[in-house]
């Protein structure tokens, strides 16, 4: 019940990629140790996360689709968007690589190859940050994929994990953020094929919900979280986070 809660608890709406990578489980206890503020993460799709914040059901928004975040602030729902960190998207696909994209380095060319060979490609198709980035990349490749029952372009309409599961089984290609990919455990038939293209940069920002819209919002505590994430301590913690020896996220210089 609410009365039994510690006075300082924040609700943060975030995406599954941050949670599934384990980053938040690492960061937030440090923040709590420093400030005494406990953060509760509701990890959902980017669209849903923004909707949650819009309704005042979250105090802080932490997602990875810059245009939506800016729009959220512009509409007066958020105070200010602070860039926190980035990682990158990677193109994964069947180990045999039927479209021959391995080590192309150029993601637009790789996608064009996938389309030309009509090898199955699994899109999340859920308006998530990853999905929106993927659409941006198709545009860069000048391909207009359309989902059809028997077509090679398939929308799973599901989360990143489920989409990777599907790609692993069929097999097919998929775009994923690196964090989810590294943490993903069921990738027996998949390989990381394309990485490092500047187009693949994936930026995360934090927004505190505007207390003028929702008076109950814990803006002060939220502000402390946003500040901490972008502080030296926070950035050091982000940079230090490793899975299997690999860094997953890189703090953005102020």
């Amino acid at each position: 019940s609410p009365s039994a809660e510690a006075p300082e608890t924040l609700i943060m709406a975030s995406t599954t990629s941050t949670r599934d990578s384990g980053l938040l489980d690492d960061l937030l206890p440090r923040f709590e140790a420093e400030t005494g503020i406990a953060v509760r993460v509701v990890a959902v799709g980017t669209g849903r996360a923004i909707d949650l914040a819009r309704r005042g059901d979250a105090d802080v928004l932490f997602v990875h689709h810059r245009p939506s975040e800016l729009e959220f602030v512009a509409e007066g729902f958020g105070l200010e968007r602070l860039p926190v960190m980035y990682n990158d998207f990677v193109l994964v696909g069947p180990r045999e690589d039927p479209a021959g994209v391995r080590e192309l380095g150029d993601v637009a060319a790789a996608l064009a190859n996938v389309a030309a060979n009509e090898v199955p490609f699994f899109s999340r198709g859920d308006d998530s940050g990853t999905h929106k980035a993927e659409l941006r990349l198709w545009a860069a490749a000048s391909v207009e994929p359309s989902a059809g029952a028997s077509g090679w372009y398939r929308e799973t309409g599901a989360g990143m994990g489920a989409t990777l599961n599907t790609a692993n089984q069929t097999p097919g290609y998929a775009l994923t953020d690196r964090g989810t990919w590294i943490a993903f455990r069921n990738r027996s038939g998949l390989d990381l094929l394309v990485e490092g293209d500047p187009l693949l940069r994936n930026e995360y920002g934090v927004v505190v919900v505007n207390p003028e819209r929702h008076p109950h919002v814990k803006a002060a505590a939220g502000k402390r979280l946003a500040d901490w994430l972008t502080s030296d301590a926070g950035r050091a913690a982000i940079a230090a986070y490793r899975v299997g020896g690999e860094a997953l996220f890189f703090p953005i210089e102020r």
Partner: protein
Amino acid sequence: MAELTEAFRSALGLIVGLDPDLLEIVSLSLRVSLVALVPSMLLGIPLGATVAIARFPGRGFAVVLLNLGMALPPVVIGLLVYLLLSRSGPLGDLSLLFTPGALVVGQTVLVTPLVAALSRQVFEDHWTEYEETLRSLGARGARAVATLIFEARHSLLTVLLAGFGRAITEVGVAIIVGGNINHLTRIMTTAIALETSRGDLPLALGLGVILLALSLGVNVLALAAQQAVRRAEA
């Protein structure tokens, strides 16, 4: 809750617009769940009847197991069916995964235990009345089961509707074994989940309204059929 008004408006818009995508999804949902109901009935009802009627050592345990079937989490069933149908799984050669066939298999595995457990109770209630008569008349085994199914037919309808309800509203199994692939395995519930994750709650609710209307249709038809049979019998 202005969303509710908006939800109804969007549901109406979709229906009036006869959106072809929507029609596809609706018809797939209905077909999958009704098809899955057939093996669920054929397996679950005799199973429930057998456990209700037969006296064997460990029968109490069988009842517990049957009831436990109602507490099988869809996600777990989904995973098991996934492992079964996966390319490296025992039935991988059927290439069923991420096809409507996989949805049928998954819903069947989900609904059969429910039908079995609920029908067991129906049969047990009827068996107290019929046991001595049927045994005296010489009806044993499958014959007794068949007679009891016939005698309890009206009560079993509710069991079937519960099974249909579980199948048509299920989402966990469908996402795991069907993959919610657009134009292939997307059904009403996975579409609703998708719109929810997109944050488009009115559309999600609108689809929910349509799903309910669909179930309403099935329920009304079932009840009308039952009434007709009742009248014919009287």
